[in-house]
């Protein structure tokens, strides 16, 4: 069987609405997304022979509720870095023939449960230091000092993704924002403004991954995983790295591009993990879209906007659609390649790259069935 037929592909996706849903919980949301993905793919729960969960509070409860007993089961931590990890793991399970149909399930009810990021019992609590946002604010300050990045330039990220969200009926925040809106929005952890932060919401996301040969028998439109890469920046991780994750991002870039022979010029859209707006800058620089320090200027001409050279986070991303910890960005990549992103479709979208710059950085390149 040729390598192409062995290729892992996403054959089903499922997403719930985003918002506040106190009448359900993370299990209910994950199950809803799971059922949606099964329907999309045209498989039954009993076809699932691999299960990877993230932020589902109990994988045992999930499997019991859905009646599945996979050949490979694992629950990953609730961090956003794990979405990329999960997809890489699923690809490995498919490539190694350990599994044929893997379900990746994410469920989050942080908004209705008022579970916020920060304020717990942590390493630097005595000084009032908490939250990933604060870590990224420290990095942004350094980026501004080292490279001259300005808040006015950074505003372009939030403004662009909000524009994309205005085209997406599922997005939570859809009102366009101006530069004035951005500058006058309150500081959360200065220099980061409200509009630089991802939106906490309830929601569920599921991807179903199989091999291309199997996908041909199924209803869902398969989207191939052409390449994958992962690298950690965990040493010294109590302090976020003052090299903005560049060494790890460069390793991930090399691994991902070389695996599939895709170059940046082949990319039709990007999905960049935007927990905070400066992370988008670090990602673009780390992956080599532009030199370190040059991304803020590079994006000013509408580079990341629909119609621009690299339409990015076409759903509105974490900043304006909702923060689903990378999961919904990967679904948006699949929808774009399928031609299913109505209202915000990138014309003739064949190849999309997802990238995440975090203490475990990762990337997935999606492409059309060959």
């Amino acid at each position, binding site marked *: 069987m040729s390598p192409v037929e062995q290729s892992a592909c996403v054959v089903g996706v499922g997403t719930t609405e985003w918002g506040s849903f106190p009448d359900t919980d993370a299990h209910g949301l994950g199950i809803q997304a799971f059922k949606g993905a099964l329907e999309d793919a045209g498989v039954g729960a009993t076809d699932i022979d691999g299960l990877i969960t993230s932020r589902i509070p109990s994988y045992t409860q999930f499997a019991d509720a859905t009646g599945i007993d996979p050949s490979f089961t694992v629950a990953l931590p609730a961090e956003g870095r794990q979405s990329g990890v999960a997809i890489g793991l699923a690809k490995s399970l498919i490539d190694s023939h350990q599994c044929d149909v893997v379900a990746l399930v994410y469920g989050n009810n942080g908004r209705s449960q008022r579970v*916020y990021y920060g304020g717990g019992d942590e390493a630097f609590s005595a*000084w009032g230091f908490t939250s990933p946002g604060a870590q990224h604010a420290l990095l942004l*300050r*350094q980026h501004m000092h080292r490279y001259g990045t300005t808040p006015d330039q950074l505003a372009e990220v939030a403004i662009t993704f909000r524009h994309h969200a205005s085209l997406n009926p599922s997005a939570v925040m859809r009102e366009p924002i101006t530069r004035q809106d951005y500058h006058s929005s309150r*500081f*959360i952890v200065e220099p980061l403004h409200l509009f630089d932060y991802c939106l906490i919401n309830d929601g569920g996301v599921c991807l179903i991954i199989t091999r291309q040969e199997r996908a041909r028998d199924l209803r869902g439109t398969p989207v191939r995983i052409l390449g994958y890469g992962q690298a950690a920046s965990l040493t010294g991780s109590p*302090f976020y790295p003052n090299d903005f994750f560049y060494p790890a991002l460069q390793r991930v870039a090399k691994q991902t591009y070389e695996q599939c022979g895709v170059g940046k010029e082949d990319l039709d859209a990007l999905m960049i993990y935007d927990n905070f707006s400066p992370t988008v800058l670090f990602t673009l620089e780390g992956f080599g879209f532009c030199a370190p320090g040059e991304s803020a200027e590079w994006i000013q001409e509408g580079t990341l906007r629909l119609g621009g050279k690299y339409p990015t986070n076409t759903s509105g991303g974490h900043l304006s659609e909702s923060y689903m910890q990378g999961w919904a960005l990967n679904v948006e990549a699949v929808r774009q390649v399928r031609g299913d992103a109505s209202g915000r479709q990138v014309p003739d979208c064949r190849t999309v790259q997802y990238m995440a710059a975090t203490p475990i950085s990762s990337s997935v390149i999606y492409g059309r069935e060959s």
Partner: protein
Amino acid sequence: MNPNMWPRPDITLWSRPFWDGVRRHELIAQRCIHCGQLRYPPGPTCNRCLSDRHDWTRLTGEGQVQSWVVFHQVYWNELATEVPYNVALIRLAEDVLFISNLVGVDHAEVHMGMPVRVVFDDVDDDLTVPRFAPTEPSTQASTR
């Protein structure tokens, strides 16, 4: 600054000597006996040579501001009266990174590379917290 409102530190098996040292007004860090690497926050192992043998060495308390932020968001209810407060990333003279608050300086005066020195805040009978003050004269006096 009203120190009594601040969250108490998470004192662990590994960090207890650090907090005892701070109580004595000493800023100390673990030093690997095998290779000499300093480490902070305190932990079980040297990540350069994997030795678990360490002692504690006193630091000068001098450093430079490598970055800083100002918290406007209230993450602990007790800090509602303290916002906006600053937190700085400080590179100590021994090349150890440290997170702490800057005292005796307005937020607007903080700058990259600003030289600072540790001050020991005796919060109450049980707790002292190390914070940092600028070692340069201030252009605007502040008694924050």
